[in-house]
């Protein structure tokens, strides 16, 4: 029965004959590991297609929903993070394998007559790959994709005369918005795949027509006599390579715990954009082409390089495939490669030294974690950015910038009447305070407390104990707490500081539940209370802040150190502002009178 059906289908379609012909394709000179890269690319492309299609069934292309839907894929489904990770790192893998493939066919001289069109279609495929990378990067609509793509569309704008129009066409308007996403999405999932498949078809058909180009030193008789069938000789090698690549990809995905998703794009922030690594050399190039020379980097050099690749088969007409006979072309291609590698390394090197970038990267990670936590409660229909409106930490930061920053510095910004709050409330911060309260970072001249002359480790023990009194200390170390307790309670601290009873008063602040949410709250309301600084106090009290605002401020203060977490995740003001653009500038104090 099944046999009959097969026969019937075979009779009407000739499918298995076709398949057999494809599989028996002779590989002259024998199957080789050096031929695996082309089929490896086909495999990676299929992998991108299936992972992409699956994600498309969850993804929602609009400026208000894109981030939320990617967040959902990443954090709410069971395998979304993995599928997205494979797609993300798969694009890098494709880029790498495509370049290796290109250099392999270049070195073998496979671009020469009669394979000119094979080479040219290959260059076009490489351009499509770049297009995939560029359009895909924007789709999550997070900070990094949004700002890096701005650079790319601005580069389009530098093309003389038509640049402006090309840019508007890609953006779907004069600024980024819903149409930017729908257009990038259309390119990424319809136009580019269709075009790539079309050219891939041509590319492979031409390859089949002309056969593989073997190693240039292969002897004529070997080439004639050694003929392997494509299946299984070459396919075996191809499958091993595909499996190896997939295992490596899966490994990278597990190791990195999937692709990064930063906080939702905030058009009002000033984020330093960095493109994917394979565009970094172009990005770096722009640094050296300033002012009216910008166009040299954005258009002229890339156009020259591409033109060279396109015309290579026509200028290198020598029939010999020996590298020694093609020295100028080797020189050109490899100096191009070296240039790109040098520029990439330079770009990475700059960034790894640039304190702004490092700082921003840490900040971005924090923001991303925050965004994910807030999104857990649902994203308002006004868009992913609105989650920050509910965020007490963002509100707290705003209050801090209004009321506290005049005297307290954070990250080098702010006045220095009071202690520096960089890393406030961390183990390190407290140990530093104990070591020398009169330090410029802490109480300066007004420090009445004597420095504690103990080794750093003991100071850290004491800090561990002090912080252990309030809930929320991360990775609390019980041994340290015990040692610290000894030092604090049996040492001189308790001569001046009450500890253990919240209401006791001595000459120095009560350290019971030091820096806990309630301690901070009472302290900020009235630092002059006898249980805190008493008559020695120099800081104004902030009893005018509402309960909500105080909560938010304290959550912000606690978020300043990596050692502590928030105990109570209380929400600040509900009710979000419509037509919102930037959370930090739009939060309004409904209850500030």
């Amino acid at each position, binding site marked *: 029965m099944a046999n009959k059906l097969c026969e019937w289908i075979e009779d009407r379609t000739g499918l298995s004959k076709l398949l057999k012909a494809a599989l028996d394709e002779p590989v002259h000179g024998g199957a080789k590991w050096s031929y695996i890269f082309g089929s490896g690319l086909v495999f990676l492309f299929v*992998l991108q297609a299936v992972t992409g299609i699956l994600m498309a069934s969850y993804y929602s292309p609009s400026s208000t929903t894109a981030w*939320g839907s990617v967040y*959902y894929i990443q954090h709410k489904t069971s395998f979304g993070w993995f599928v997205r990770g494979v797609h993300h790192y798969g694009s890098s893998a494709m880029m790498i394998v495509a370049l290796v493939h290109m250099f392999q066919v270049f070195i073998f001289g496979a671009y020469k007559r009669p394979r000119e069109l094979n080479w040219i279609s290959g260059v076009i495929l490489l351009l499509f790959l770049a297009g995939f990378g560029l359009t895909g990067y924007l789709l999550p609509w997070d900070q990094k994709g949004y700002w890096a793509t701005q650079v790319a569309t601005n580069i389009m704008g530098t093309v003389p005369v038509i640049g402006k129009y090309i840019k508007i066409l890609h953006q779907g308007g004069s600024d980024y918005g819903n149409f930017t996403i729908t257009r990038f999405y259309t390119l990424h999932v319809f136009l580019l795949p269709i075009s790539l498949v079309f050219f891939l078809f041509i590319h492979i058909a031409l390859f089949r027509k002309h056969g593989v180009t073997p190693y240039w030193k292969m002897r004529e008789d070997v080439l004639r006599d050694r003929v392997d069938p494509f299946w299984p000789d070459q396919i075996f090698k191809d499958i091993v390579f595909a499996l190896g690549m997939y295992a490596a990809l899966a490994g990278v995905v597990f190791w990195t715990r999937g692709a990064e998703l930063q906080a939702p794009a905030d058009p009002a922030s000033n984020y330093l954009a960095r493109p994917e690594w394979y565009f970094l050399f172009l990005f770096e190039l722009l640094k050296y082409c300033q002012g009216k020379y910008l166009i040299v980097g954005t258009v002229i050099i890339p156009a020259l390089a591409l033109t060279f690749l396109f015309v290579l088969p026509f200028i290198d007409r020598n029939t010999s495939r020996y590298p020694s006979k093609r020295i100028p072309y080797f020189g050109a291609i490899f100096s191009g490669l070296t240039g790109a590698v040098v520029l990439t390394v330079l770009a990475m090197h700059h960034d790894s030294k640039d304190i702004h970038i490092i700082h921003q990267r840490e900040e971005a990670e924090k923001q991303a974690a925050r965004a994910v936590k807030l999104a857990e409660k649902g994203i*308002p*229909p006004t868009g992913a950015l609105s989650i920050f409106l509910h965020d007490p930490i963002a509100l707290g930061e705003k209050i801090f910038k209004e009321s506290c920053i005049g005297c307290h510095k954070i990250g080098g910004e702010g006045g220095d009447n009071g202690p520096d709050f960089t890393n406030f409330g961390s183990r390190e911060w407290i140990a530093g305070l104990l070591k020398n309260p009169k330090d410029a970072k802490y109480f300066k001249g007004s420090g009445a407390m004597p420095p504690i002359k103990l080794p750093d480790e003991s100071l850290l023990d004491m800090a561990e104990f002090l912080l252990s009194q309030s809930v929320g200390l991360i990775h609390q170390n019980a041994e340290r707490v015990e040692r610290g307790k000894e030092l604090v309670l049996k040492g001189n601290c308790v001569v001046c500081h009450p500890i253990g009873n919240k209401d006791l008063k001595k000459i120095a602040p009560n350290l019971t539940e030091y820096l806990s949410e309630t301690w901070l709250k009472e302290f900020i309301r009235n630092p002059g209370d006898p249980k805190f600084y008493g008559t020695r106090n120099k800081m104004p009290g902030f009893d005018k802040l509402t309960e909500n605002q105080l909560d938010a401020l304290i959550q912000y203060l606690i978020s300043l150190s990596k050692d502590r977490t928030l105990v109570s995740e209380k929400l600040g003001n509900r009710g979000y502002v419509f037509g919102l653009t930037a959370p930090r500038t739009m939060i309004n104090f409904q209850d500030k009178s």
Partner: protein
Amino acid sequence: MENNRRKFLKIVSHSLGGVLAAGIAAPLVGLGIHPWLKETVYGTEDFINLGKLEDFPVGVPKKMNVTSSKMDAWNIFEGLVMGSVWVLRKEDDSLSVFSVNCPHLGCGINWGEDEKQFLCPCHEGVFDLNGKVLSGPPPRGLYSYETKIENNNVLINYKKLI
């Protein structure tokens, strides 16, 4: 020799290919069936607050909007009117909460103050104060909801019709 080698290569290729295909398919299927594994659209509250007990007059049904919030995948929609119900507070402060949709074909029913009956305008279904069918085509009495009173607030379980 060559033939045996190729036979062996074929078997190995098939097995490796199978491992590869399974390794790729598993997470894809896992992601694809997500809506089987997890609720994607749901109301955020089981019991929805309709108001204070005092807001309801004794013995006269009052129509109330049911307002709650809904999670739709990543989105939360707050303050959504999900529908409305008839609330009847009885002498002993117990409550009956009826669906406004007629059990016949779903038209919205009204309270006839004069007749002291629920009336369905579509096919003249008539129900008494307790939701029992008095006349017309409806096959059963009015649908109702589980209710409870907490801190003087009237709450209903809007997810389940009884």
